[in-house]
């Protein structure tokens, strides 16, 4: 009997061992397609991403990576269409709000089933654990955290000085932001503050709600909770800024342009625009950065915008090639390219002070420090569940805009949207 158990265990363990990905065969050429949204934006990371791919192919001569640029808002519908047409990409960079859909809708294979535990552990060595957590759902890792940015309070230091404020002591709470905005608007012609929270992605809204001790989705993912006083309070803060005449009614791009031309003093926006802001503000004004402000003394909990890498192919050899690409992209060298050439966060904290990687660069560019510091208390950008996840996010974000810029009471608008969106939750 004992022999039988032993045999069975042996058989099972070999079966499991065999199911992991085979190593790359140096005699076999493999081509994989890589959908990437940085490749789709000439100004924001296409070059850096291509460099990442080129260096990977140099190190792995028998793997060819075909990078395809697909914009982030069209990524998921493009992949769906390609899956239906039977020509899905092998690996893709996808934003986190699609995580639930990828895991439960598309049914992709978690990394734990593809890669041996020792190999995974070796790669996770030195990786920011909070970052890794963001690619996980129900205990399985579906995506490997890749590019990350956090909401940063960008500052026009010249306007601060013009209004008699100290740009080296930027506001740390929303109340202080409001006061500073008032001072600046009284002293200059510029607008006070713009929080770039609107649009179809809800990650920054989630940052605000979390920082006001709320959530948009319950912990067990069964209920939408953006009808709570905490969530409504976060929206009310923005409405108060607007009612005080300190937050101009600008569109997403208009706000960016207003900031770049020196007409806006404080601008809360993703750190992903860092390289762009740095080069565009040259000679126009001195750019500063601070952490996301707090709601009173509540702890700030920034979420990330950004993406993970997902393996979509079923072919083991291509899965292996994709995994090797993912490992390189998230290696010390990979993050050095990503941080210096695109502007996303390095998810390997040790390389930040290491002169072999980012050390010199960070010393020369202290503006990245607030972004780096926020990695310490990062919270996941929570994806909505079920087939109607995008529609729920749309309803919620439309309500946020209505509540901030409209005339109806904030609570009325948010409660109405909550009721409508809740009807779309999976039954």
């Amino acid at each position, binding site marked *: 009997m004992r022999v039988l158990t032993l045999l069975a265990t042996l058989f099972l363990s070999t079966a499991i061992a065999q199911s992991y990905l085979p190593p790359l065969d140096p005699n076999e050429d493999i081509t994989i397609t890589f959908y990437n949204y940085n490749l789709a934006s000439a100004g924001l990371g296409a070059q850096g991403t291509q460099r990442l791919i080129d260096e990977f192919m140099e190190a792995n001569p028998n793997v060819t990576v075909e990078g395809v640029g697909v914009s982030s*808002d069209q990524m998921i519908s493009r992949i*769906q269409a390609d899956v*239906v047409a039977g020509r899905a990409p092998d690996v893709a960079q996808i934003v986190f709000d699609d995580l639930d859909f990828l895991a439960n809708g598309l049914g992709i294979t978690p990394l734990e089933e593809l890669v041996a535990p020792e190999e995974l552990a070796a790669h996770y060595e030195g990786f920011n654990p909070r970052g890794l957590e963001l690619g996980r759902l129900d205990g399985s890792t579906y995506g490997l955290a890749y590019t990350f940015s956090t909401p940063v309070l960008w500052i026009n230091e010249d306007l601060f000085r013009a209004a008699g404020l100290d740009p080296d002591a930027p506001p740390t709470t929303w109340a202080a932001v409001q006061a500073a905005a008032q001072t600046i608007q009284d002293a200059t012609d510029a607008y006070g503050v713009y929080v770039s929270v609107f649009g179809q992605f809800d990650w920054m809204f989630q940052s605000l709600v979390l920082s006001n001790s709320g959530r948009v989705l319950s912990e067990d993912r069964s209920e939408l909770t953006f009808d709570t006083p905490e969530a409504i309070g976060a929206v009310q803060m923005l409405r108060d800024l607007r009612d005080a005449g300190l937050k101009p*009614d600008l*569109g997403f791009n*208009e706000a960016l*342009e207003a900031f770049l031309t020196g007409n806006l003093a404080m601008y809360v926006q993703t750190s992903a625009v860092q390289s762009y802001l740095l080069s565009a503000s040259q000679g126009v004004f001195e750019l500063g950065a601070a952490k996301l402000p707090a709601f009173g003394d509540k702890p700030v909990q920034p979420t990330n915008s950004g993406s993970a890498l997902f393996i979509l192919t079923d072919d083991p050899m291509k899965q292996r090639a994709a995994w090797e690409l993912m490992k390189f992209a998230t290696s010390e060298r990979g993050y050095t390219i990503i941080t210096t050439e695109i502007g996303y966060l390095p998810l390997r904290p040790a390389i930040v002070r290491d002169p072999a990687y980012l050390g010199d660069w960070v010393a020369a560019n202290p503006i990245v420090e607030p972004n780096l510091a926020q990695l310490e208390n990062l919270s996941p950008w929570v994806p909505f569940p079920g087939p109607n996840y995008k*529609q729920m996010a749309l309803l919620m974000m439309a309500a946020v805009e209505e509540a901030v810029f*409209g005339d109806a009471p904030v609570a009325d608008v948010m409660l109405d949207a909550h009721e*409508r969106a809740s009807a779309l939750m999976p039954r």
Partner: protein
Amino acid sequence: MPALITIGVWIYKPLVQTFQLATYEWNLLPFSPKVFVGLTNFERLLTLPDMQQAAWNTVLYIVGTLPFSVFLPLAIALVTEDLHPRWRATYRALIFIPMIVPPVVASVVWRWLLHPTNGVVNLTLQNGFGLDPISFFRDTNIAIGSIIFISGWKLIGFATLIFAAAIANVDRTLLEAAQLDGANRWQSITRITLPLISPTLLFMALLSVLLSAQWSFAYINVLTQGGPRGATTNLYYLLWQYGFGTFAVGWSSAAGVILFVAFGLLAWVGLALIRRYSFYDA
């Protein structure tokens, strides 16, 4: 017969399938469950908070585009008709240029021009006339006008070309005969030219009514994404946002059916009007 089969396979079969798919909650993936939900998709779409506003805006887009697709181009075509051929070609070429600018490029250029703090238009208003800056794409009362103006501006060249071609086809002998009979310029336009180009006029008007809400799509998408607070959204944009953002085939098929029925009715009415009022020089 092959033509009939082709139409059947490529047009009517998908049409019938659209009606079917509209009753499911499904994402088109072969391995994911296809849940029958009856008319829920229609109910969800028709009760969207922005639905009423989108329907009203669609009417505004239709009415607002007509001056740019019919009245202005007609006037330009008539006025330039009498010019020396070389000047006529120059004027019409100038008017045609916006037509060949890609919509996204045109949108970005207009966004720069109309920017509330840095745009040429607003700087002129501020410095030249001492006015407050106007937020052309964020003021709920103005934004839809800005979008209609930009899509209309793109359209004038095309419509002018169509009308110019129609006017050129009017039989010269009729105009000369009228002149001999003592008709003035205005009389020959209203009594001879306009009736003779009425099929083109009505066709262009119908095209404009049916498609104006679609023509504005690119500008809405680049400039306002339907905002501020739904002020520039229309039926197409709203249904596209909710239906096609995720490839949710139930939502998008239901959206397609709603548009098909609504604009099908409109087209039917329009065609009846054309038959009733067109005048052909037989």
